[in-house]
């Protein structure tokens, strides 16, 4: 299917928007989706006070609750399409888990007891997992500070989060091919 915006590239992103209960659907290519800035909602948000405010604005002042799911139809790393996955029941690479997350999550919940791993963590990943958990915690603190309007401390936290995210990305890009791909997505 061609991108509904440019009518030139293959559409590989499906955007389902629901605004005040009304659903709209769009099929776009990577570029157009990026241009329309739809993607900013989809992946790990880059933390900035600006965005926090704008989302608060959306919620509180305009009174409209906007939620958005971006369901990818093809993995941009290995090229496996979700339709192919449905047929063979196998994913192609680790990124498939990120790219198809919206569709996989309900599936995983149906098969398993939950959608969070609670078992063994390989020693090599332990440091990274700890780091990410700390990062999550700081992000939560940031939210609290913003809500309390303690902006000076919030700004400090924001800088720390940025630094940590940057060093994580640097570490990743020194790693394997896959990590390079992952960094591309996040940026």
């Amino acid at each position, binding site marked *: 299917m061609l991108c509904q915006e440019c009518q030139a590239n293959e559409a590989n992103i499906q955007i389902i928007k629901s605004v005040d209960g009304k659903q709209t659907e769009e099929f776009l290519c990577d570029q157009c989706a990026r241009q329309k800035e739809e993607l900013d909602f989809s992946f790990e948000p880059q933390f900035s006070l600006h965005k926090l405010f704008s989302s608060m604005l959306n919620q509180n002042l305009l009174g409209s609750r906007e939620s958005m799911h971006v369901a990818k139809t093809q993995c941009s790393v*290995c*090229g*496996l399409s979700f339709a192919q996955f449905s047929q*063979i*029941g*196998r*994913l*192609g*690479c*680790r990124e498939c*888990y990120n790219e198809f997350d919206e569709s*996989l999550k309900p*599936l*995983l919940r149906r*098969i*398993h*007891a*939950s*959608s*969070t*791993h*609670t*078992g*063994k*963590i*390989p*020693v*090599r*990943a332990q440091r*990274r*997992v700890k780091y*990410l*958990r700390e990062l999550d915690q700081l992000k939560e603190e940031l939210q609290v500070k913003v809500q309390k309007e303690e902006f000076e401390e919030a700004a400090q936290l924001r800088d720390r989060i940025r630094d940590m995210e940057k060093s994580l990305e640097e570490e990743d890009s020194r*790693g*394997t*091919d*896959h*990590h390079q791909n992952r960094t591309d997505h996040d940026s």
Partner: protein
Amino acid sequence: MKQDQYSLSRWMEGGGPEAEIVISSRVRAARNIEGSQFSCLASEQETGTVLDRVSSVTGSSDKFKDFKRLQINELSDLEKQTLVEKHLISPFLAYESSNGAMLMRGDEGVIIMINEEDHLRIQTILPGLRLEEAWKETEKYDDLLESELNYVFDERYGYLTACPTNVGTGLRASVMLHLPALIMTRQINRLLGALSQVGLTVRGLYGEGTEIIGSLLQVSNQVTLGHSEEEIVSNLGSVICQVIEQEQSARQGLLDKKRAELTDKAWRALGTLKYSQIMSSQEAIELISDLRLGYDLGLINGQVDHKLLNELLVLIRPGCLQLLAGRELDHNERNLERPVQIKATLERFQKEKVKPKGNKSNLKDD
């Protein structure tokens, strides 16, 4: 080569806790290595890289000096089939893998499959109900490999696997059960329903999609995400303990009411196995089951033991049969060869019992 391929696997030795109902316990962990796509999409070059990486770890470590490395494409069709029939490797590794290989510990109790559906499948199979031990053993080799390899691991979803049904711990624990009394007393369907309600999967002897024959069934965990490895293993273990209790009470009930019939059935099974001239594998499996029940109830002392019964269960299968016969056999020829091999094996057992200090190699071809 023949000798080599038809060695007894650790699980076939028999024994272990609850051996009269639980034939074997198996725990396998699915792992993938960073830097390559999952097997189904990986190019031959990528699967080659996976193989090289794993080999460089295991080849240089003392901990793996006990292991034999077999490359799947260097095995004959019969050898592959035999490995599948002994439950040592998956049909996928044997027939569909690219650059597939296996590392097998000398006792055939631990097997590491390389380039299976996931890059690595580390499994331990032990006789009897020993799930905890099987997990510890699997984990030992998992840790050894992980100390040198970057596993594909996600903070949220744990070990990422090609199939989402394995994600999280990547752990599948299973037991092979012999439940003739629950089947005879028609309690099995209720049990199967109950098992699926507690998140366990039940399959026949030969894995996915096979029906129950010879009163043998495999029970395994379905859930791999959201429970820890220890929880998975102990959950399965505790359910199995209840199944064992039910089977035992059903056996006692049968013994009280139908002792003579059961004794007769077991001796007839032995007679048929010993003196038949033509036999299908289906018939053989059912007879071996009758014989096993008779032995476990103490009705035919001295005639068989678990090791012999396990051995019979494997050697009647098409691949093993041809390997033992030393030539390819079609369906009809196999039905003729099967009783020959069964008889020879039963006679060897009797002979070795007379000479108790005889050598261990009762599997040698005559």
